[in-house]
């Protein structure tokens, strides 16, 4: 039995609805999420406005990934050959178990006691921290957001802003609790203070680490390079200071050439944070060579499939174009209200609602495809032009085919479609309903409650029909 999602990854996508209710009632969370339209959304809009060729770049970026996915085996092999030729090692891992085992084996071989980590969502996907800890190795997160949630024993709630669910006050409290040896009078008000505070702690950890683990934004087949983008520089220290650098990356991160990576980089940061480029873009090509001033002695790439090849050739293939910018989360009205944890697994927002059923199986994520109003804002900003609403609809189709759609919705749809496919009956029914509801509600103009519409009238009135159907009036007008 393969394990795509290890037990410890807090798998509860099935409880999305309850999670969402809790999230809506969580005052801190609501405060933390409140400004997304003024920050992420506004920053992206400004960055896009400043780059006239942005739309053309989206097309180019999409074409690069489509080509890479159509020739995935070729480019992955080419990448692996290049890495090996440069003195690195590639570990092909079919699922999370295999990837965890590969990472642990490498760490054990060098007797690692602490591991520093750059930000990696694949690390979350395979729950590598729990696995290392269970085996006596201490993982230390070095990205500020990841560091904060590690102190709080939480998981990231956003693929690029892992601590977005927290208020500044909460972060300050967390630091004061965890950093009792530091000056208690220090200010902990703005993100800069937080970063200084975390850095004071992390310096020693960087120097003491035996292994550095990072993710990868790109794998470049042409050169065997891996690429990370960061804003704090922590990724560079993570991968340069220890003796060993392990890159964990999923297979769809592959692009054919350096130039291709450069093209996609132009849409990545703009879509993610509204920056033209992230502060650091770091290319790693193999271990330290003779004469190099720095770099790790060993360079390993753990390549993870974990269900992705099974999406190739399906209606979900284009999800593999995703470059994890987070724009769809930022722009999603549902994500903005419930945050990432409600989605129950590593990935959230529209991309999570498509990818989670893709990786875990739809039966483990049934509430997610329905958690969208199909407003289309995600697709309108996706730098890779992934048709997210269409793919959510395809998951709904799979649910319907497999009778995973709740019975009362199925019977509701069946009843409605019985009439919608019989125009005469429909005509009669619509006329009667308009008359009945119009007569009952016409004077007040709206219903405060209605049988079978409790989900609606619990929160809002149901405006009453005018009393005649359009077709009744139209027929009368023609006479």
């Amino acid at each position, binding site marked *: 039995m393969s394990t795509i999602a290890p037990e410890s990854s807090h798998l509860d996508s099935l409880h999305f609805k309850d999670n969402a209710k809790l999230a809506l009632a969580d005052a801190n969370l609501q405060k933390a999420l409140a400004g997304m339209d003024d920050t992420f959304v506004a920053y992206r809009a400004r960055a896009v406005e400043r780059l006239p060729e942005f739309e053309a770049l989206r097309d180019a970026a999409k074409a690069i990934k489509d080509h890479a996915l159509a020739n995935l085996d070729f480019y992955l092999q080419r990448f692996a050959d290049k890495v090996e030729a440069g003195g690195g090692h590639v570990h092909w891992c079919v699922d999370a178990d295999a990837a965890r085992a590969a990472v642990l084996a490498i760490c054990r071989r060098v007797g690692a006691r602490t591991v520093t980590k750059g930000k990696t969502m694949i690390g979350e996907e395979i729950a590598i921290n729990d696995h290392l800890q269970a085996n006596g190795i201490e993982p230390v997160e070095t990205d500020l957001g990841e560091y904060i949630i590690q102190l709080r024993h939480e998981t990231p709630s956003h693929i690029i802003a892992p601590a977005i669910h927290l208020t500044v006050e909460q972060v300050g409290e967390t630091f004061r609790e965890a950093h009792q040896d530091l000056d208690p009078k220090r200010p902990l008000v703005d993100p800069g203070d937080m970063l200084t505070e975390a850095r004071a702690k992390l310096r020693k950890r960087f120097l003491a680490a035996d292994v550095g683990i990072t993710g990868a934004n790109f794998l470049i087949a042409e050169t065997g390079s891996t690429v990370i983008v960061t804003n704090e520089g922590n990724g560079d220290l993570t991968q340069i200071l220890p003796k060993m650098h392990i890159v964990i990356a999923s297979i769809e991160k592959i692009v054919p050439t350096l130039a291709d990576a450069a093209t996609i980089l132009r849409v990545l940061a703009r879509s993610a944070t509204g920056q033209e480029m992230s502060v650091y873009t770091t290319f790693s090509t193999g271990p330290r060579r003779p004469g190099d001033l720095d770099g790790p002695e060993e360079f390993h790439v753990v390549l993870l499939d974990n269900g992705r090849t099974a999406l190739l050739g399906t209606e979900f293939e284009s999800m593999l174009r995703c470059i994890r910018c987070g724009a769809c989360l930022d722009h999603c009205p549902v994500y903005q209200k419930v945050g990432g944890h409600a989605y129950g697994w590593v990935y959230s927002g529209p991309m999570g609602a498509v990818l989670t059923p893709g990786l875990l199986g739809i039966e483990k994520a049934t509430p997610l495809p329905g958690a969208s109003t199909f407003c*289309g804002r995600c697709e309108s900003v996706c730098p890779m032009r992934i048709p997210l609403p269409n793919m959510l609809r395809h998951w709904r189709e799979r649910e319907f085919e497999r009778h995973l759609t709740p019975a009362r919705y199925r019977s509701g749809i069946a009843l409605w479609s019985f009439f*919608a*496919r019989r125009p005469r009956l429909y005509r009669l029914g619509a006329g009667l309903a308009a008359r009945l509801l119009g007569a009952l509600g*016409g004077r007040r103009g709206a219903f405060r409650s209605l049988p079978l519409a409790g989900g609606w009238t619990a929160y809002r009135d149901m405006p009453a029909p005018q009393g005649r159907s*359009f077709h009744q009036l139209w027929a009368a007008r023609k006479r």
Partner: protein
Amino acid sequence: MAIRVGLFVTCLVDLFRPSVGLAAAKLLEEAGCIVEAPSAQTCCGQPAYNSGDRKTAQAIARQVVDLFEGFDHVVAPSGSCGGMLRAHFPELLADDPRYAARAQALAAKSHELVAFLVDVLGRERVAARFPGLVTYHDSCSGLRELGVKAQPRRLLKSVEGLELKELPSAEICCGFGGTFCIKYPEISDRLVSEKAEDIERTLSGSKGATTLLAGDLGCLLNMAGKLGRRGVKVRVRHVAEVLAGMAEGPAIGEGSGEG
């Protein structure tokens, strides 16, 4: 020769607010079209399509193609249903050898009402009067699937006495989302509550009557229902009613005082 337009009334207009259909017909006739509204029409199939019931959605799409393919154009007073015909029917019927090409052809001549008036018929103004302050919500499907944004504003500008104040959240979903509002009522409620607050803020301070307009009845019922529940005195109407000069009767959710 006059353009023959098939009016796709939409199921919500048929049942809840037939005056919107009559207003649409009037606007089209004023622009010189011959309007027919086939009585065998029911719905565009979105409830099935968006619930994953593809077979039913296909059956309904075929019905719509059969019924409307003979017209020069098909026009709906809704971006959502217009978007269904224009953006989704071709994909839905792509594997049906008898219907694939016909669905494409129908899609190419299907339009949202206001976009049709402006973009296809070249209308730049209407002869209507509607004194007061209004704001406008851009329904998601019309905005993002069909590019309906400037057209309603252009025509509203020509309405005598009407003052349009933009809604800051005009392009943010109102939380209706078809079955979404039933499946996730709490999230939907939060979205429509914030929308209602924004509407109230935008229109506050005006001495006269204030009105919210939009081009989709689903969103309008949602927002009117929320404004009504909150006791906010903003009237809610479909944009076609105002453009056609047919905005005298009770607004959406407003009582007739009779019966």
